């Protein structure tokens, strides 16, 4: 692994640019890095299970343990403070309840298939269970999926995981995203040229460590046209 962390932009650190950010933005980003909230919504058992699940939704095995991006504490904080996205599908319970139900469902599937909890099975077995949720073919806990569409739970979970992973400046380093640019500006708009303080891409072969069940690309629930995915603004 690259000692700078994963990605094709070795030596690129958005945080090095923080003196060029406006004060409000700097506070928000640094707070994210330095003040990870305590778990207050999930029970200890739920939090442990969430850790195991989120470690597969956005795996970070290739990251130095000190450089792993916290995800579960931020989902917990969102649910604890009741911060929603402004809508709820009519076939879904409120987000907090959806998480509690979904975690119970995942645990039941693990016990049904392997006789052990999700946290205790192998990574490959965990990936297999998550793939079943992704495909909307859960083999157990059907009473739970009757209360809540499994593909909606899946999208809620993945959406939250990627939101908090890619909100972190270490993830920006990984993907070569420029980060905040006020008041300084971006000046080189064309041909993907880097700013003087950005890095050029240095591509190399990259192989996902361990199991790579999650490297396949298939549509969620097998549907090419998703009706009502989680969405931010576009145009």
């Amino acid at each position, binding site marked *: 692994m690259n000692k700078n962390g*994963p*990605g*094709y932009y070795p030596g690129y650190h958005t945080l090095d640019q923080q003196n060029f950010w*406006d004060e409000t933005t700097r506070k*928000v*980003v640094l707070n994210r890095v330095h003040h990870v909230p305590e778990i207050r919504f999930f029970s200890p058992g739920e939090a442990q299970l969430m850790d195991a699940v989120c470690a*597969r939704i*956005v795996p970070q095995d290739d990251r130095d343990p000190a450089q792993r991006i916290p995800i579960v504490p931020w989902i917990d904080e969102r649910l604890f403070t009741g911060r*929603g*996205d*402004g*809508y*709820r599908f*009519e076939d879904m319970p409120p987000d907090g309840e959806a998480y509690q139900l979904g975690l119970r469902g995942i645990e039941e599937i693990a016990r049904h298939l392997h006789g052990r909890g999700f946290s205790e099975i192998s990574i490959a077995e965990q*990936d297999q269970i*998550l793939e079943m949720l992704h495909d909307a073919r859960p083999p157990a806990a059907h009473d739970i999926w009757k209360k809540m569409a499994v593909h909606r739970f899946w*999208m809620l979970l*993945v*959406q939250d995981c*990627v*939101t*908090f992973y*890619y*909100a972190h400046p270490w*993830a*920006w380093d*990984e*993907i070569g*995203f*420029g980060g*905040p*640019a*006020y*008041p300084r*500006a*971006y*000046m080189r*708009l*064309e*041909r*993907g*040229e880097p700013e003087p303080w950005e890095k050029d*891409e240095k591509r190399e072969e990259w192989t*996902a460590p361990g199991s790579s*069940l*999650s*490297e396949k*690309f298939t*549509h*969620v629930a097998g549907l090419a*046209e*998703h*009706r*009502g*995915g989680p*969405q*931010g*603004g*576009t*145009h």
Partner: protein
Amino acid sequence: MKSPIAGQFDSPNGKPHMLGPMQRIRTPMRRFAESEEVDYAIVGVGAGGGVLLQRLARAGFRVVGFDAGPFWDTERDWVSDENGSHKLYWNDERITGGEDPLALGANNSGKGVGGGTVHWASFTPRFHPSDFQTHTLDGVGFDWPLSYGDLKPYYELIEKELPVSGPYFPWGDPHSYPYGPHPMGGVGDVLIRGCTRLGIDVSAGGPVAILSGSRADRPHCIYRGFCIQGCKVGAKASTLITHVPDALANGAEIRADSMVSRVNLGKNRRVTGVTYFDSEGREHFQKARAVVVAGYAIETPRLLLNSACPGFNNGLANSNGLVGRYLMAQAGNVVLGRFDQLIRMYKAPPAHALTEHFYETDPKRGFARGFAVQTVSPLPIAFAKQMMTAKGAWGWGMRRIMMDYNHWATLGVLGEILPSADNRVTIAKEKDQWGLPVAKVTFNLCENDKKLIEYGKQKTIEIMWAAGAKEVVQEARYAHLVGASRMGRDPAQSVTDQFGRTHDIANLFVCDGSLMPTQGSANPGLTIMALAARIGDYLIAQGETIFSSDRREMTAPKIRRDLSPPDTWGHGMPTV
């Protein structure tokens, strides 16, 4: 009329209230007493409410604008950060359902002074002349009670007030813009290249309400790419920075963090003011001689429905049952293409190039109406969510795709979905934090919509391949919300007349996107503002009649070019 004025403009830290790095609100803000009867209470200070507030204040009316969200200080409150901009949207619960449920929240709502204009991408194409009479021309939709010609002078005026930057615009009614086009970012290059190779005419560098050159106390764009997180630069127009400061300077009051819960009905089928909750949850009543609801396509019908009372048991202005009906979203499929070369789509405004080549009905396509194709440039989190649905990505697959973020470009379809009575806003049994029933949104596509979306999607995919993409995927989605309190000539078929006046109640108006009977394939913001300026001219021309009589003058007013905010005139380029 400039008194009484009570103190300096509020700022919790004693610093000036900033709108961008240079513009500040110096004016002490007027405060009206609740017992004082104001002329107009405007509910919602967004695209429509913001422009109307400014017009009425300039003409000397006593006017209060209510907004459920904060009065932003852009230096203190906004960030160059995707996840940190969550508070710009209407995040209170709403229920969404139907066969094709709409995503709400960040996708199509605003909360706070400026409303959705603080985080719009700010594409500002006009509607085409055909949009005003789709029923007559194509046998679909509903004719507007006004024509393109009625709105054209207001388009021209608002394009100067914002102002709009862009090249000569060849579609619909061709026209030019007061500010020149922007330089191209990577995604714009992709659209231009793909379209040009296919012989599709395309507009580079606008039209967008983003300054391509500095004007007065607003700097030009710095291409930082965070348009839809709120423009800290002040280059992108929002009514917060274009119209609200002038409204305050002319004696308007803004009551922010105030959630209007009811429009109150008095005697003789006339409204008397609004009931609202302040930021601490205390209930108040503001007397007003007329009320304008400008809460956009969900909160406007919700407020009217929640204001049901004896005589209007199904909601205010809802005697024909049409409040909440004919809600529309535009098809907004996003087509994502991966290129060998770097794109870096986070640079430049997400909105900077488009084509309206496919806007009008073409009988050969087998469906009515059309679509536009526009640049959209999601930042990393939005892109990851799109990949979750477009490719089903998760786990290592998600990590791998995201490591290629800088190689992807995204284009958006913007397609006209036809109005349908069953696509609607109703009241749910769930309650919000003030105890008010929340909105439920039901949405289904019709056959024409499905054909249009399929065609638009395939055409956009074709453009992406032609631009040289090595992989192309797409995500189905929707953009914008309009309708749900539509205007029309026939009181049996609409909620308001062409001036936003409700057919049922002579001193109750609507002034926002919910007025639109159809939506074209143009982003609605500019048209909402143009309608608001026209409604403003009407109310000003009518004067006291609005407050004292039920008489409805249906003659359009003369346009008032003397009511624009400062710096509107004498800047920019001569227009063609």
